[in-house]
């Protein structure tokens, strides 16, 4: 089979990871318009939690995943209470700078505690290796990633569409003032959504280790990808984030494979053009 | 037959399933003093946004002095003599009162793009700004930043900004909104003092203003015009009463 299928598979796997990392930011940006550039610091935190628990305390990989989620969610609650809450109505610039400051601090802290090397992680045996199908190797870990992402997407969409909580989230994203007017406690709603979104990022960070590695620059490197997904997909749109993440994932892998010299240039160019054409994103509102 | 100062024909606009303007026809004769009233959500401010170009209509035309301006950008309509004020003050918080109006004058006179001469060199523009402020009794505070003004004075500054563009048609969106009784005297004087070369359409809930200044009243409900007439006719119209009391179904 031509290598394009392998490229597509890897691209989809990478895309699902990007989706996990981005969906939280998309929803919280859509709801509160709070530009949280520190989003990937939570992802990085999740990754380092997994590393610490596995390598330091001997936990099993699967056991560390919920821990990564919870740690990132808890950290986000703390930061939200102490800092972010006061800046929901601040200018874009102040929000950017506040959260960039947090990114810098997190990168420095990670480098101080863990050093700047890539963190090794031992996957459970059945996730290593690959499955042969139709003449191609499908890495087991990537299949696992895709499965996890699909599962989470289903849960997210089901929550949004069928639960009362989900309806409130949709209302608040759509029109915050009206939602408040209807009696929805938008502040608490946001705190919960923010925690969930950051937790998902933490989970993504933990899952990312085997796919793309983990070092202190993670918080910044993947921020750019996440911002691309969120801007192109549309704020507050899970479907948009999914589509944009797939586009970016496949595009990035395909670019690196077929046109390595200008791969990144194409990505940034396409992103810039897409944002210009549809500033609110492919699936964005207004 | 002379063209109306401002006319809209067949203006329609919807947001998804929400119809905010349904085939509206309206014509303001030169020098008119018309009031636009209606319950909240009737689409009055939306109509102003459509007239000024902040919103694009789905269908219909907007004619300013007989010229079709439907596809023109807002700033281009201002240049052709259409100005508006905002229901909620939309000022330049950190600019002083004088600077704000001088800016509007400079923009009108197309000198705002010169960056090689200092502002004090523009005598005529500053004098004109000072004069506008004088008429509106704002010159005593002309060096204070807009955000430090009393609310009534801010409403007056709203009007000053619109007047600085020397409009032929002026759209006032609830000029008296939120102004305390003791500050409204200057406001009323300002509106009454508007030159009769200017055609004025104002949205208002304050019936005293409507009765005092409007020659004709237009009533809007649910995105359409319900009825049009003199203030006395409208005041005694049972349909209008029902609309305000909520008994009438949307037509």
């Amino acid at each position: 089979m031509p290598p394009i299928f392998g490229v597509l598979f890897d691209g989809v796997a990478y895309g699902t990871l990007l989706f996990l990392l981005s969906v939280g930011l998309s929803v919280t940006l859509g709801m509160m318009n709070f530009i949280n550039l520190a989003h990937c610091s939570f992802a990085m935190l999740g990754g380092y939690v997994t590393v610490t628990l596995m390598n330091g305390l001997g936990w099993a990989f699967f056991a560390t995943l919920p821990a990564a989620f919870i740690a990132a969610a808890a950290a986000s609650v703390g930061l939200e209470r102490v800092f972010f809450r006061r800046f929901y109505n601040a200018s874009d610039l102040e929000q950017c700078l506040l959260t960039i400051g947090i990114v810098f601090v997190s990168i420095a802290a990670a480098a101080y505690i863990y050093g700047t090397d890539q963190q090794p992680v031992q996957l459970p045996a059945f996730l290593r290796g690959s499955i042969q199908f139709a003449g191609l190797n499908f890495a087991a870990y990537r299949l696992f990633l895709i499965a996890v992402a699909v599962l989470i997407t289903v849960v997210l969409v089901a929550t949004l569409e069928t639960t009362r909580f989900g309806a409130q989230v949709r209302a608040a994203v759509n029109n915050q003032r009206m939602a408040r007017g209807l009696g929805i406690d938008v502040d608490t709603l946001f705190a919960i959504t923010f925690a969930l979104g950051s937790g998902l990022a933490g989970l993504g960070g933990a899952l990312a280790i085997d796919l793309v590695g983990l070092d202190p620059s993670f918080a910044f490197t993947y921020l750019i990808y996440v911002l691309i997904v969120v801007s192109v997909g549309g704020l507050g749109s899970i479907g948009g984030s999914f589509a944009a993440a797939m586009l970016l994932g496949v595009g990035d892998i395909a670019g690196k494979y077929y046109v390595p010299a200008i791969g990144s240039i194409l990505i940034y160019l396409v992103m810039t053009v897409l944002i210009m054409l549809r500033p609110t994103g492919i699936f964005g509102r207004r | 037959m002379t063209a109306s100062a401002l006319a809209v024909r067949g203006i329609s606009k919807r947001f998804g399933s929400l119809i905010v303007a349904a085939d509206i026809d309206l014509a303001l004769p030169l020098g008119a003093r018309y009031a636009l009233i209606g319950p909240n959500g009737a689409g009055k401010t939306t109509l102003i946004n459509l007239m000024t170009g902040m919103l694009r209509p789905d269908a219909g035309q907007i004619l300013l002095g007989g010229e079709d301006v439907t596809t023109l950008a807002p700033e281009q309509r201002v240049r052709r003599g259409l100005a508006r004020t905002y229901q909620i003050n939309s000022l330049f918080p950190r600019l002083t009162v004088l600077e704000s109006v001088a800016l509007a004058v400079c923009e009108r006179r197309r000198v705002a793009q010169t960056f090689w001469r200092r502002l004090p060199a523009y005598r005529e523009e500053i004098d004109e700004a000072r004069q506008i402020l004088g008429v509106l009794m704002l010159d005593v505070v002309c060096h204070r930043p807009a955000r430090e003004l009393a609310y009534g004075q801010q409403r007056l500054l709203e009007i000053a900004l619109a007047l600085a563009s020397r409009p032929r048609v002026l759209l006032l969106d609830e000029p008296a909104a939120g102004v305390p009784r003791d500050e409204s005297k200057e406001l009323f004087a300002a509106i009454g003092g508007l030159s009769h070369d200017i055609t004025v359409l104002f949205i208002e809930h304050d019936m005293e203003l409507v009765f005092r200044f409007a020659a004709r009243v237009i009533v809007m409900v649910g995105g359409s015009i319900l009825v049009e007439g003199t203030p006395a006719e409208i005041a005694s119209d049972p349909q209008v009463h029902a609309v305000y009391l909520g008994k009438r179904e949307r037509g």
Partner: protein
Amino acid sequence: MTGATIAEPREYLQAQMRWRWGEIAFWLATLLPFVITPDYLLLASQIAIAGLFVLSLDLILGFAGIVSLGHAAYFGIGAYTAGLLSKWGWGEPLSGLLLAACAAGAFGYLTSFIISRFRHLPLIMITLGIGLLLQEAANSASWLTGGFDGLQGIHTWPIAGRFRFDLYGYAAYAYALTVLFVIFLGARLLIHSPFGLALRGIRDNSLRMRAIGAPTHAHIRTIFTIAAMFAGIAGAILAQTTETVSLEVLGFQRSADVLVMLILGGTGRLYGGLLGAIVYMVARDQFSGLNPQYWYFWIGLLLIAVVVIVPNGLLGGLSLLTRRARAAPP
């Protein structure tokens, strides 16, 4: 009643625009390094370059409200233009400056058509995208830019045939400082002009600007082009005085640094940016022995502190303090 007790507008405005003693003192003080710290003249020239770069960012951000995460693009274009010109045999500095300004200004003008049409997150992303694009393109075009290793073979001719750039830094600092001062005078005139007023109007309320008939997009294009030219000039001076140009002149790091400097000192005051540049560059020099991670830790904390405590930067905080001191009872 009118005009009795209030200051005449033109006189009032002129008084506002007059040179303050503090400003004169500041510029006199910039001459001190020649006398007091002659060993640090190279650093001083770096600070002047940074100051010019920050000034250009203040014009678009502090005065027009455009948040750009990719302003280094114009700095880098200026640097590479001057560097390439020199490498290809023409090392005369002033003409190099002029050409760099044109190149950066041209790119600024082109991109301004895009930039003027967006706000908030899309704008931030587009400026980021343009910066990243340019950096990647420069990386790829290593035949032109020297890629990772940077441009080699830059040799700047002495200014006016006499003042050579050397390791002592006299010529470098004099050159950088003079250019900075001249451009500063231009920027100061600009912000006191009707155009400067229009920019502040756009920053305060761009919607209302349109409602008074202002061509906001055209205004933004103009200031963006001017700011790009100034940034390009700063980059060119860097290339000429250090005789090196590498990819980092276009990088996000540089865009982020200049933002930090501007926020630190305070936006919309011109002098805020200069002050921020001085504080940041001096601090960086003092702590240059530190592990880069520690530097980012403290810069991160500083950023958070500035945003939380003194959102208007050092100058903003100072003016707040002096206002409180004046209002306090004796």
